[in-house]
């Protein structure tokens, strides 16, 4: 049993490494393979600009892709098990909508509140802070509700309601916003992996690792929750504490990812399902690392596609993930067994 998994993990790790190098070597500027490796190893490259592109643009972008893919995949996995619902994901809980609301308030709200506000606040960091704050506030509301409402199904619906409310507020704001502000908001909504410098990446990575660690420590609780909450309780699991840790892990992962890269659709929903199909298991000890690898792979591929190699165009990453993710979800539903979890 564990032997076959070992080979699958080995294969996925190899594919991840391959995708990583493929992602780095592709881009709007054509750089030969040899030069890519030489710039990574710092061995002298024919053109200095190549090394600059590789080290300061493509490398952080590839690392971001792995963080985003694995992080969103894992937060989707945690949500699906916690809410016992195959449709759960960071979007459903309202975490991503919370982030969107924060960003909309900063970009579009500046029109409502006046010009000084606008020029002062609409910077990259203000967007990141607003998105984190927005997702955290929605999470906090969900948490407060979840201590009063014991039914996880109700929490899921409340998450959906939060999403509707934030969407409505965003609509109202965009009605008052100027065309330029609207464009800026729409561009954030496209999602982008390439906007992170190394110093951004360090902060991003630290928060991501905390979320990842919390997920790893929840593996046993997640497996117990597969039986349902009452059985889990009868096995001595502290439901309230486990639920809190899982929700915090999700919001750290999904919240910061949305903050730094914009809302990226379908990865959180599709990757856990794809992983279950490949590994045919519900054991989180296997699913968690598998989702990590697969999420990274899919995100690297999506990013490579969105770059439209050797052209000047960059497609919105959010559109690419939806174009790949939505058919995957449909395919899973059409298959006889459907979306089991």
């Amino acid at each position, binding site marked *: 049993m564990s032997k076959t998994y070992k080979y699958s993990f080995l294969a996925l790790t190899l594919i991840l490494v391959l995708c990583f190098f493929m992602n780095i070597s592709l881009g709007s500027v054509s750089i030969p393979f040899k030069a890519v490796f030489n710039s990574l190893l710092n061995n002298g490259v024919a053109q200095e600009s190549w090394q600059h592109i590789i080290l300061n643009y493509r490398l952080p972008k590839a690392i971001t892709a792995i963080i985003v893919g694995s992080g969103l995949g894992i937060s989707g996995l945690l949500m699906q*098990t916690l809410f*016992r619902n195959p449709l759960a994901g960071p979007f459903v809980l309202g975490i991503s909508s919370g982030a969107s609301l924060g960003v909309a308030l900063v970009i579009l709200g500046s029109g409502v509140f006046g010009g000084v506000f606008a020029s002062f606040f609409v910077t990259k960091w203000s967007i990141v802070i607003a998105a984190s704050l927005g997702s955290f506030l929605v999470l906090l509301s969900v948490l407060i509700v979840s201590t009063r409402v014991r039914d996880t199904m109700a929490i899921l619906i409340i998450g959906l309601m939060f999403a509707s409310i934030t969407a409505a507020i965003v609509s109202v704001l965009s009605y008052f916003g100027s065309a330029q502000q609207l464009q800026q908001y729409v561009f954030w909504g496209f999602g982008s992996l390439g906007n992170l410098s190394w110093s951004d990446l360090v902060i991003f990575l630290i928060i991501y690792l905390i979320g990842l660690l919390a997920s790893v*420590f929840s*593996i*046993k609780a997640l*497996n*117990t*929750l*597969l*039986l*349902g909450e*009452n*059985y889990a*309780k*009868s*096995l*001595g*699991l*502290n439901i309230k504490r486990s639920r809190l840790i899982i929700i915090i892990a999700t919001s750290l992962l999904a919240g910061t990812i949305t903050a730094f890269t914009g809302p990226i659709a379908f990865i959180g929903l599709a990757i856990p399902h794809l992983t*279950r199909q490949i590994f045919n*298991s*519900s*054991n989180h*000890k296997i699913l968690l690392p598998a989702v990590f690898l697969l999420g990274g792979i899919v995100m690297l591929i999506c990013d490579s596609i969105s770059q439209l190699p050797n052209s000047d165009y960059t497609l919105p990453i959010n559109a690419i993930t939806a174009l790949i993710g939505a058919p995957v979800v449909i395919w899973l539903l059409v298959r006889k*067994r459907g979306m*089991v*979890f």
Partner: protein
Amino acid sequence: MKKETTNIILKTEDLSIGYASKKTETVVASNINIELKKGELIGLVGANGIGKSTLLRTLTNVQKPLSGAVFINKKSIQDYNPLDLAKVLSLVLTEKIASKNLSVFELIALGRQPYTNWVGNLSELDTSIINKAILQTNIKDLQHKKCFELSDGQLQKVMIARALAQDTDLIILDEPTSHLDMYHKAYILKLLQKLSKDTGKTILFSSHEIDLAIQLCDTMIVMNAGTVVSNQPCKLIQQGVFESLFPKDLINFDKDTGSFRVKK
């Protein structure tokens, strides 16, 4: 006499069960004094809505008693921390398990959760206990199947195996025979009887199969409009407890066969 008391696994003292809100207190049953002994099979019967589930919820510490106390191995269940309670009491519930994508072996292995490390790795001891539970419930041929491939009867056996793997002195089952056909009802209850004898575990189940319970149980707990009596089935028949269980307009209890008959 002394030996007798050490054999008692679960004991209630002047237990009163029901629901309390700020203003009112709804008493479902009171003065409940029952003792469940080691290795016994105990059936809990009573009409719909009489409070069987409330009693089971109170015995399993899901719900607080209005007054009185429940003791497992002489320790009040309120004094157990959740993990220690999970090592003396396992449950088979009526609710469906959340994930049917688990394999039978994986599901039964989850019964070892109170004993495993932080990531849930199975030790050799855990694996041997799981395999023993699989053998005791005759599901060796099912162990690699997924739960969604099982029939209701097979799934119930798997859930019982999971409770066995939890390795507790007491197993409580809530209506383990609902949704099953007549053969499987008898099969499951017979299996429970065999398990209580072979493993020395105390097994308490609630059921509407009064006929079968009378034939198989060592002790029966009968709930009847606010009162709870427990005794050996034959003594309960002599006392005429079953006659008053249901309204008399439709069915009659036949003392000779120990079963209910529809009035002609």
